[in-house]
């Protein structure tokens, strides 16, 4: 096992651990903080995947903006002290849990059978420029301009919608 694999192993373990903490923590604040940690570890993994732009955006947008929003809402609703007493799990929760575990098993089986395609990477882009902002930006503003504009429209709508929904009185 060489260095990248070792690094990946560590990062992966940490990611999974904090992800489990997200869903297992009693206090929602703990969940949120674990989620931030998960995002940061994931950003590192993205960097290892040479997806530099996305790694940065992950930290900026996800960990920086979205999670802040979550924390604001948690604090706004004063949920910090709400520790839910855990009654017996309902039937649908058991079914869901079993289904999730089974899906995991199935996906693992599927992935293990998957073989890499021969002749990987038709577009032999230079590894130096792969995943950089110039590369991503270049594609974004030329070939993928329409989705870009659509997403910006979506964000506008989301902004307006969030304000309207959250107001007590219009």
């Amino acid at each position, binding site marked *: 096992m060489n260095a990248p694999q070792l690094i990946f192993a560590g990062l992966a373990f940490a990611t999974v651990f904090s992800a489990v903490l997200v869903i297992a923590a009693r206090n929602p604040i703990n969940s949120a903080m674990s989620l931030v940690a998960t995002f940061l570890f994931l950003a590192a993994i993205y960097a290892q995947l040479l997806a530099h732009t996305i790694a940065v955006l992950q930290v900026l947008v996800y960990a920086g903006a979205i999670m802040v929003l979550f924390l604001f809402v948690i604090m706004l609703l004063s949920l910090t002290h709400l520790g839910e007493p855990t009654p017996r799990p309902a039937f649908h929760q058991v079914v869901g849990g079993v*289904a999730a575990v089974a899906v995991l098993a199935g996906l693992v089986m599927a992935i293990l059978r998957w073989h890499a395609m021969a002749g990987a990477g038709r577009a032999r882009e230079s590894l130096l420029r792969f995943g950089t902002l110039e590369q991503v930006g270049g594609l974004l503003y030329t070939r993928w301009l329409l989705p870009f504009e659509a997403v910006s429209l979506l964000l506008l709508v989301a902004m307006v919608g969030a304000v309207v929904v959250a107001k007590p009185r219009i």
Partner: protein
Amino acid sequence: MDTSWFTKAWANPQALSDNLWLIIALPAFGALVCGVFGRALGRTYVNLVACASVLASFFLSVFAFQAVAADPSVIVTSAANGQPLRFALSGDWGVWFQAGSFSAHFGLWVDHLSATMLMVVTGVGFLIHLYSTAYMEHDPGYWRFFAYLNLFMASMLTLVLADNLVLLFVGWEGVGLCSYLLIGFWYTDAANAWAGRKAFIANRVGDCAFLLAMMLLVLTVTAFARAPSAEPPAIFFAQRRAVFAHAATSEPGPLNFKVLEEFAQYIPASLAMGSKGLLGTDIPIGPLAGHTYGHTLTVIFLLLLLGAAGKSAQLPLYVWLPDAMAGPTPVSALIHAATMVTAGVYLLCRMAPLLVMSPAAMATVAVVGALTALYAALLAFAQDDLKKVLAYSTISQLGYMFLGVGVGFFWGAILHLVTHACFKGCLFLSAGSVMHGNDGELNIKKLGCLRKEMPWTTACFGIATLAITGIVPLSGFFSKDDILHGALHTHLLGYEWVMPTVFAIGSLGAVATAFYMSRAYLLAFTGERAKDAKVPHAHESGWVMVAPLVILAALSIVLLLHGFPGVLKTPAGQPETLMEAFLKPVFGVADKLAVEAHSLEPETESNPWPGFVIALALAWVGGAAAWYLYKRVFPARAGKPVPAVFAAVRSFTVHKFYVDELYDAVLVRPIKLLSIGLFRVVDEGLIDTVLVGGTGWVTARIGSLLRYLQTGDVQAYAAMMAVGLLAGVGYAIFEVLAK
């Protein structure tokens, strides 16, 4: 003297041909007017419209008759074989419907046979319409009556004028319908309605057989028309055969009477070629393949006989006619004496060229006719209701006509049909007059001494009675005894035992006819007034009712000329009657074919007078027996108890030999039980409860079970989605990735 007046048609034959439909349309229009506007028009106008439409039809029929009878230049081209035909008018108004190689046309055809029937139907019909105007003058439903009567005329004329079996069947059904409507005319009394229903159902059984016969006939004729050309007849009539094949499979259709006649021509021709003949050949193609033509023709004609038996009240479907006397008397006179019940005889005569090809069927027809004649006569012995006596008499006389047809004596049957229409019509109308004058009383035991009070009616009834019993010199004698004479002297090959048998039965029937008719006359019209009569003195009816009686009675006498033997001579030197000569263009074909096909040998005895003398003697015997019994024996025994044997026989006869009860137990009751069973079990139980209600119940139950899936909990729905995803993942692994 310019005799061209007799040999030229009075009206342009082409114009007549094109306008034949008017003969049917005028009464139909009258029916429409009387039915729809009758109540508003009032009695006078309804009478006028009804009688005028029939009178107009009568005049048109007279012109058609004259054109066809007198003018040898009236020629039409037969669509069946392309040959010219004399003495016929024909009109065709296009295709009615077409299905594959079958087509039926609106076609009308007047030849000597149709012309005779036309005169009978329209003439007697008009007289009865006239009579009805007086008979129904106090009835509130008069407009309905005339509407139905006119509709009946239109249907009967369709039947008579049709040039193919399908259109004939339309008229056939139409007269059945009108019979039902008219029998149940006073429907407020349930018994009348049931009588109408019984008539309709009995007719329906016959109609079903008729339809089956038509279908078999279509299959047979089209199979022959398309048969492989190696058949012997093909060589014989090559060009004609091509025209026939076209006629039978596209225009004008396989059920056209001329096409059927042409088909019949090929049968003796096939014998002439030395093979076993068409009758013994198997039908080559179609659903009937494997059966011989001969067997199929026999089956077809037995079915047609059943159909005719339904309409003409023969065994076993005669049961409706006595009950049909519940209708008004003019209806009985028109429908159940003169016209509708003769439709069966007309049908068999129309099919004569083919009928003679099946000696088995002819024998059956003759035997059925003879048995019916005797049977009905015996039933008439014990009837006290005057109209019932006449009803059984009608059945009996129709039996004679069937007898005539069955022995190949077609012109005799038609002659008897015509004379019977006259004297039976006269008898029924007289009965109506008696009813009119005696406040509705019809029981002959409660009448009597009408001779003094109703002289005209008595005279007409008397003349008609003499005609029906066969007393010289009235027409009935000649027609009935011509039939019996012909029965004895023609030979059905293969069935020689039939001739003497039917002659014996027919003669017995003649004796019985004389007996019961004399009984009716003696009890009702002579003697003293019965003590329990409704009205002490009867009054004679007005001239509107008496005039038709007189006319019909006169015709009963005059028509003897048509049956008088020896008036004319055939080219071969044999004497023949006027009627025979008149109908020769129609039945000559059948006779010739019968001889060529070796199924019938014509009459060899040329002197009819010895037979006539015997017949006359039999009639006198019957009449004298009646006179003796009812004038001497019974009055002398009045007040004494009747011996048990005679009482039992009389009771058995009065109850019509319990045939109605038999039919009820064997046919009606099981069908009713079956219907009730099907209704209760299948319709109510199975379909309504189980299938329809059950479907609803199951759906409702499933719905209320599935309801529980709506928990309102989003996580539950998400759990279901997760399960679905699991299924998808499983599919991906096992079906896609595993391969």
